[in-house]
């Protein structure tokens, strides 16, 4: 019993921290989303549903649609690159796994903004990419990719790819190779064995990778800002604008709540499909 109590005491700081810094702000944000923006500055504590109604204005729905489009595009690309990467990485020897893992981690030691500026140098008119392609004779005129939709997609893929790789990798690691051999033994071609056994059994990793990349790619506004200029507005950018430029805190809160609900919906779908309670690859 005594041990129980001391264990509980040890957990107290954790609970306090979670309450103050996670649950508290969430509750505050939720309440805020039902309040009214003051005429001049700040918030009036007056219940209203207007903030949520506001979201249904075409311009904001447009933003959600655009966010979804970008998220879907980058998630598809990330899946196409990340799944094979994680799959083959799991097949390597232990030494090579470690080396590759290190290579995947190294970029994180640099601030993500700085890395994004790197992409600016690559993409800008007459930048590294244009010069390279022109030198190779692939193109005649600069592509001027910076501040275009493709540039934002590349930035998203770059920023989120490793989540997919790690999720798929950890799923493939756990895969019992003898199952694939059994499938081959029972008459399945390598492709058939992949689709009937490998893909099915690594589905939790793949789905978790999709969630881990889809959700952030709707909110990573700074990527859209830096690589897309002002042309591409994501839900994340919208929230930021409403909060910092328009000073409409209740509306920003309502947008954030909707985004969070969508996220929760996706995770609960994941749980329903895979029957697992943890996201694969997230420790």
């Amino acid at each position, binding site marked *: 019993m005594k041990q129980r109590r001391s264990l509980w005491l040890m957990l107290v700081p954790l609970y306090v921290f979670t309450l103050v810094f996670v649950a508290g702000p969430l509750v505050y944000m939720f309440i805020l989303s039902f309040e009214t923006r003051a005429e001049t500055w700040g918030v009036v504590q007056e219940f209203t549903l207007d903030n949520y109604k506001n979201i249904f204005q075409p311009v904001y729905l447009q933003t959600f649609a655009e966010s979804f489009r970008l998220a879907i595009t980058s998630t598809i690309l990330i899946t196409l690159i990340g799944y094979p990467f994680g799959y083959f990485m799991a097949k390597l020897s232990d030494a090579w796994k470690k080396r590759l893992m290190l290579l995947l981690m190294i970029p994180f030691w640099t601030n993500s903004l700085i890395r994004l500026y790197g992409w600016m140098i690559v993409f800008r008119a007459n930048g590294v990419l244009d010069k390279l392609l022109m030198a190779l004779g692939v193109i005649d005129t600069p592509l001027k990719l910076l501040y275009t939709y493709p540039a934002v997609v590349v930035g998203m893929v770059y920023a989120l790819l490793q989540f997919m790789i790690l999720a798929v990798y950890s799923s493939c690691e756990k895969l*019992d190779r003898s199952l694939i051999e*059994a499938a081959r033994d*029972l*008459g*399945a*071609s390598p492709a058939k064995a992949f689709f*009937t056994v490998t893909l099915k059994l690594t589905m939790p990793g793949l789905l978790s990778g999709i969630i881990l990349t889809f959700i952030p790619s709707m909110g990573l506004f700074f990527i859209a800002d830096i690589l897309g200029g002002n042309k591409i507005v994501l839900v994340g950018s919208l929230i930021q604008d409403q909060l910092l430029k328009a000073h409409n805190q209740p509306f920003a809160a309502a947008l954030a709540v909707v985004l969070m609900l969508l996220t929760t919906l996706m995770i609960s779908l994941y749980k329903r499909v895979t029957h697992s309670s943890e996201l694969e690859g997230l420790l």
Partner: protein
Amino acid sequence: MAEPILRLEHVTKSFDNTPVLCGIDLEVQPGEFITLLGSSGCGKTTTLRIIAGLETPDSGRVVLEGRDMTNVPPEKRDVNTVFQSYALFPHMTVAANIGYSLKIRRRPKAEIAQAVEEALHLVQLEGYGDRMPSELSGGQRQRVAIARAIVNRPRVLLLDEPLGALDLQLRRQMQVELKRLQKKLGITFIYITHDQEEALNMSDRIAVMRGGQFEQIGTPAEVYDRPKTDYVARFVGTANILHGVIESAENHVLQVRAEGGCVPSLCCGCGKQPGDSVTLAVRSEHIEFCEEGGIPAVVREKSFAGGMLRIALTLGDGSELVASRHGIDIDLEPGQPVRITWRAECAVPVEEASE
């Protein structure tokens, strides 16, 4: 003799420059139950995987029903495997597992369902089709793995220590069932085990493997009664090994001088001459006690083991022999000097296997 269903021709295989198979030859007859017997690391699993097509030999050929299959992928071989770990697909029901090979071949649904029912019946798991593998006991999973491998009626069934994970009682029961199944289906079984008792019980022929080679291939009786090498003698039925020098050879009966005495041995065509050194293998149940002749020994201890009396004897040079007797009516006490011998046909000259 009929055309062998499977022939291995001088198959070699190494992993990371470590030779695992050093040129093995094997012929398996249709409908035969052949066991590859050996301790772990002797190359028996690699042999099986090469037959299944899951490994490619470095050299040599795998011939199935007269067709060279050496470089044919596993899915195109009329061979199925029961894996040691069962390798059941965890995301499929028992029925889907069993029907997998038929579904891959795009057979009609009704046909698959019927074949699955039949296979479940064969392994006595009727009504289990809708369960998931995780809901089954080890023995039941084993049966599913067997059902999955036979549903397609392969020409050859490979079994990699299929009973290794089961407890003794279940194992005995499954031995009988597997044998019954094999008789009923007429499928050629190539069976791997390190359990000599299992091998002796079930097989038509046993191939004793060691260090990537076959030490001896023969019927259980041949391997047990006429082991070719001291390794086989020790591994199959744990025989006593005795070194000596041939004193005389008459009518195939050798008199062998060993450890301060003289014992007989039967040798048909072993080409041994008086003066040659020889290694004898003698089963413990064949050791007899005598008044005179034979070789002197001292009783070290006696113990009961499953209805048998085990008598450990020490010879003049300190080496040990084990004799066994049914019943307990022998008044031997530890420390007592005795003389031992055996009938000539019970001692087999064996080759001393080189390491």
